[in-house]
């Protein structure tokens, strides 16, 4: 039903495509937009466009960045030589929120999953290898999720880096079996990172 308002329907459909949003919420959000002042809506729309246009990936680590390098890579106070490898930028932000880890990151943008058509060449791995080769990296912490795919990716990375003699570790299984970082509290993440183990 579009109540004779196909535009409103289209807006609802756009919201519904977002994660965690069903029909009901999508409607509520759409009506909220209708209630907003015109300038506010303009601003919102402009932000959406600019976000897409100006935010890209950091050339070095794959994190989101508004310029060539991301904030973390530009931060001189971060410890060089330690890399934490994560599946996606969302995981990076979760780890950052613990304020415990002071090393650098590397974002893979996925994990190995043949079922989803994702192989090694689809991940940000060439760059990872290059960094290990060129940046004098001492340790790579592979913080992919403890799923079958995350574990396999970690194993793949540890084998890929074997020849460089770099220490490859994995956060200890303080993490609940089969869960993803998203649902774990920061205390657990911190503890798991402290107890990381070699693979």
């Amino acid at each position, binding site marked *: 039903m579009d109540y004779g308002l196909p535009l409103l329907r289209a807006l609802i459909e756009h919201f519904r495509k977002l994660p965690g949003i069903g029909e009901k919420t999508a409607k509520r959000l759409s009506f909220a937009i209708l209630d907003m002042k015109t300038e506010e809506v303009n601003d919102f729309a402009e932000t959406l466009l600019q976000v897409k246009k100006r935010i890209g990936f950091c050339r070095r680590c794959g994190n989101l960045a508004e310029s060539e390098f991301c904030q973390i890579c530009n931060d001189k106070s971060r410890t060089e030589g330690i890399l934490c490898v994560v599946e996606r930028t969302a995981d990076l932000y979760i780890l950052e929120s613990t304020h415990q880890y002071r090393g650098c990151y590397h974002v893979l943008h996925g994990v*190995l999953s*043949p*079922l989803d058509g994702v192989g090694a060449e689809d991940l940000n791995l060439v760059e990872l290898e290059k960094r290990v080769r060129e940046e004098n990296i001492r340790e790579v912490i592979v913080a992919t999720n403890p799923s*079958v795919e995350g574990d396999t*990716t970690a*194993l793949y990375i540890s084998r890929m880096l074997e020849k460089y003699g770099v220490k490859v570790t994995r956060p200890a299984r303080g993490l609940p079996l089969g869960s993803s970082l998203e649902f774990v509290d920061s205390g657990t993440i911190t503890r798991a990172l402290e107890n990381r183990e070699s693979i």
Partner: protein
Amino acid sequence: MIVRAIEIRNFRNISRAALSFSGTFNLITGRNAQGKTNLLEAIHLFSLGRSFRTRRSEEILMFGEDYMFARLSCKSDSSVDFRLEMSLEREGNIKASINGKRISGMSEIIGVIPTVIFTPGDVMLASGPPGGRRTYLDYTAAQVSPAFLSDLKSYRKILKQRNVLLKGYADTGRMSGEIDAWDEQLVEKGAKIVSGRKDMLGETSLVAADMLEEILPGSEPLRMVYECSFDPEGNGTADAFRKALHAVRPGERRRGHTMAGPHYDDVAIYLGKTGLRRYGSQGRKRLVAIVMKLAQAAAIMKRRAERPVVLLDDIFSELDAEASTRVGSLLSDKYQNFITSPGTEVLPRVTTETSGAVLYSVASGVFSSGKELRCGVGVET
């Protein structure tokens, strides 16, 4: 574990039911196609998170209705009361909650109500295809060990992922470099599966042998041996699995799927020195299948310190009077039993004469109110 009561709305032909149960024997009688198995299926739904009869959940939704609901009130052996709920809307997935709290994955519910079920198809357990025996061990182990369940789920996932890579090779002639990592994962989890299964078989085979000896005194002893498809030594170690994978590599790449692993394993069953599968009589095979299932209950009990709920669907109408009495002697009022049967005549006396036994009859999905068969002190439910 005791299932105290169930409430049902729109589950198959049961439009509405609210039944409370005995802690010993619950007998469900009725003519064919009235809803006996449907009730067991509804109870068992809480054990597996899905129907034991079908993988298509919409089948359990009553024709013409658009939602199903079932609630189970239980009491654990440590005297904790809790309730489980399942609901299903048309075109939706089954949703479950424990004490009103939604659970995220169905595997969270496996093992909550430890269950053993014997259905008419299970007479093939001892003599039918190996898959049934693997499921038997897997399902027993999964109910006593969340770690095993997690490994089993991982193993299946890895198998699927790896098969996609092999299929890709079969189609294109190019093997991606990741195959080694998947191999290693498969090997590691596969070895854990074998060890978990062997451990479980060690538990159940002894009990099953004792039970068979009890009901058939002097018969050849029952022996069950884990047959690991990839390890002639029978240990199923990661090393053996790794070697076996290596050996089947050319074949796998040609055919595009995994050709070694615990998913090809079996359990060999002997009476004395003779293989049951080839040489056993129909009657023997059936009795062995039954003791295997009852031994499963004993194994769960031992490992979990929680009594399983035993569901027996129509097993006595298949047995002659003598066999029926013998099997009856193995049933126990230590467990809560749910037994379906066309009538009470074919049931062994223990089921009707134990104090607290309750009889329900069902016609067209409507249950009579439970009738206590024999009054007395009754086991507290």
